[in-house]
């Protein structure tokens, strides 16, 4: 029986944390946020060099063949570091291709996805959930617009959700138009992508599994973000003085910080469990993914708000790092569907 990270898993987290902190320090993050780049290339490449892209891909393709539990442990750390670039969509696309039984397809894409040379993203239209996907597919071509696609301009591969709940692979180029959006979360840029008869390769896989993995991964990103917002606030409270005392000595603030920690720390095992249930394909895997997404989206939102309040004025400024995670909370809440949607799904799946 084991339900906490191994030393090896902790070492991987440390390596990722260190690499991201080195390649995307606060100054670089602020440049990214204030600039127009689709993603921060240096940190993306560094993470890919560490094997993030192939975490769950087969060893034959150059991947590490690890589990979703390993992936959430990684993504948590990357969320805490405000990773730029489409880590979660990229991992989802990799899972989709790896699930395909078509050897040609696997050979075509998996090595590049594993090495990170090929950047992939997802394009799920409608209201995120597979039942609502609305890109039409006919005669190997897709048509339709998808509202929110991360890092579309950098992607060499789109995993597109098509009407009826299936998935297809599309490459940029013919019949693919990208319209960048002003993204609220400036560490993860979104575009509208219009498919107009673009050539597509349908995947004969269980799209629900890919979607559920995405929910758990976004929950892990939210967990990392919430942890970072809490850590920043605790550090600030220890450091900042008022009335001759560190403000972290004032009982009301201490209790607010305890409440923030109470939102984050127990949620960690929930994310692990959702990943574990997915890895083992347990009967409650789908429900757990939905619950984890809903719960973590709410926790990140709530903790981000509390962090700003606890900081006072400085927490409300653009230049202070916290603003970056406040906006990431908006992203994690909406991306792949909001809390009320996933809660309603979880309740319905329980048969209540």
């Amino acid at each position, binding site marked *: 029986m084991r339900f906490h990270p191994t030393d090896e898993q902790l070492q991987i987290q440390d390596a990722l944390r260190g690499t991201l902190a080195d390649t995307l320090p606060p100054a670089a993050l602020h440049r990214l946020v204030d600039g127009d780049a689709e993603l921060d290339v240096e940190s993306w490449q560094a993470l890919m060099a560490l094997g993030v892209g192939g975490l769950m891909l087969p060893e034959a393709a150059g991947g590490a063949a690890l589990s979703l539990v390993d992936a959430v442990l990684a993504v948590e750390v990357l969320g805490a570091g405000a990773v730029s670039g489409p880590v979660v969509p990229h991992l989802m696309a990799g899972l989709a291709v790896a699930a395909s039984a078509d050897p040609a397809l696997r050979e075509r894409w998996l090595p590049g996805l594993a090495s990170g040379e090929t950047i992939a993203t997802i394009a799920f239209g409608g209201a995120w959930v597979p039942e609502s996907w609305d890109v039409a597919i006919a005669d190997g071509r897709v048509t339709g617009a998808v509202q929110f696609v991360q890092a579309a301009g950098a992607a060499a591969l789109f995993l597109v959700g098509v009407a009826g709940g299936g998935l297809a692979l599309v490459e940029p180029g013919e019949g693919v138009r990208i319209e960048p959006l*002003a993204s*609220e979360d400036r560490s993860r840029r979104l575009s509208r992508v219009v498919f107009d008869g673009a050539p597509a390769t349908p995947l004969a896989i269980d799209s629900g599994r890919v979607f559920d993995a995405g929910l758990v991964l976004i929950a892990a990103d939210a967990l990392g973000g919430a942890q970072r917002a809490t850590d920043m606030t605790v550090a600030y409270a220890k450091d900042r003085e008022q009335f001759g005392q560190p403000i972290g*000595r004032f*009982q009301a603030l201490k209790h607010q910080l305890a409440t923030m920690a109470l939102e984050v720390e127990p949620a960690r095992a929930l994310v692990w469990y959702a990943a574990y249930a997915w890895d083992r394909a347990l009967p409650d895997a789908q429900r757990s993914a939905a619950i984890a997404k809903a719960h973590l989206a709410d926790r990140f939102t709530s903790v981000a708000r509390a962090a700003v309040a606890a900081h*006072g004025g400085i927490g*409300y400024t653009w*230049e202070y790092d916290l603003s970056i995670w406040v906006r990431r909370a*908006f992203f994690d*809440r909406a991306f792949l569907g909001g809390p009320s949607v996933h809660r309603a799904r979880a309740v319905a799946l329980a048969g209540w």
Partner: protein
Amino acid sequence: MFDLRYGAEAELFRQEVSGFLADAWRPDGRRGDALSEHVRDVRSAATERGYLYRGIPKRYGGSEQPLDIVRAQVIREAFAAARAPMEIGGNGMAMLVPTLLERGTEAQRERFIRSTLDGTYIWGQGYSEPGSGSDLASVRCRGELDRDEWVINGQKTWTSDGARATHMFALIRTEPHAPNHAGISYLLIDLNQPGVTRRPIRQITGEATFSEIFFEDVRTPADWIVGARGEGWAVSRTTLKHERASIGSADALGGTFAKLVDLARTTLRDGRPAIEDPVVRETLGRIEGWVLAHRCSSYRLFSLAAAGEEPGLVGLMMKLLLTETGHDMALLAQELIGDAALIEPAPPGTRGRGSEKWLDQILGTLGNSIAGGTTNIQRGIIAERGLGLPRDLAMGSA
């Protein structure tokens, strides 16, 4: 007898004010420069008739009217109905002028009040410093008397209107050897001089309504001090009491709530208006209880003020109530706008009512819990001044 009507005398007065505005005010007068001749003329005529600057003596440009809460409210309503220009607001009117009236010298009053009323002087508040927050006793920006001038060095932050302010009233440490409060003086500073650097503070929303102001050997005359040396703390606590109670301003919450209901009506979910969702209805219903409690409490406060009675406990709560209810509204708005939270709202003033514009509101409620003292400070005030609980140990005699 409870009666929310203002009474016959007030309604007659309303007719008088409305009649004046119908004659004097050209509704297109606001176009172009907000300080156009016409606006100036109307303000001046309205002041002459006793409608504006009522608490300010005539010799400084006011209309010197007896305190009358109901008349003041009728005037506000009549001007709002006619979309006519009220008093010039801002920190100058709200904070500096009352302070000068109570603690200033005759020379200071003559020098500054009239220019503030007519908009010539725009005042920034210079209280907060980086690291000082709610603890104003820790002010470090220092002033040294060099013959007939104060020489000021240091930094102020969160100065509202800092970009366009012509002057600042500031708390400056002038007595370096006196403890905490006792070393602070209240100085007036001309901001249009060398040595003053302004840096806008960009907020989390992207806007910049506040500034940091840096002083490097900035000079102000020795007699631009209000109160005595070392009395700055006490001087800064003077507040405007004259006809402050109002109903309209308190109902900002009601205005936002109406917009929230609108958002819920116009947002579609699975093709149906979101307001048909029972969860949304229940949440709106919950929030409305707080909104109404706030509005009705503003009636109560207005009534108390009109009767010359103290506002009491509820008077200490209005701001916190606003913050907390605003927070609840922001959470529902965030739920309602859904994916629109992924895109930045268009800049203020641009056309289009995309639901993503609620993002500013949602982020703005974060700012509310900071502006004017954090909610923790507010709760402390309610507990101590309102409920008579003892001071925190940690706060000492602050």
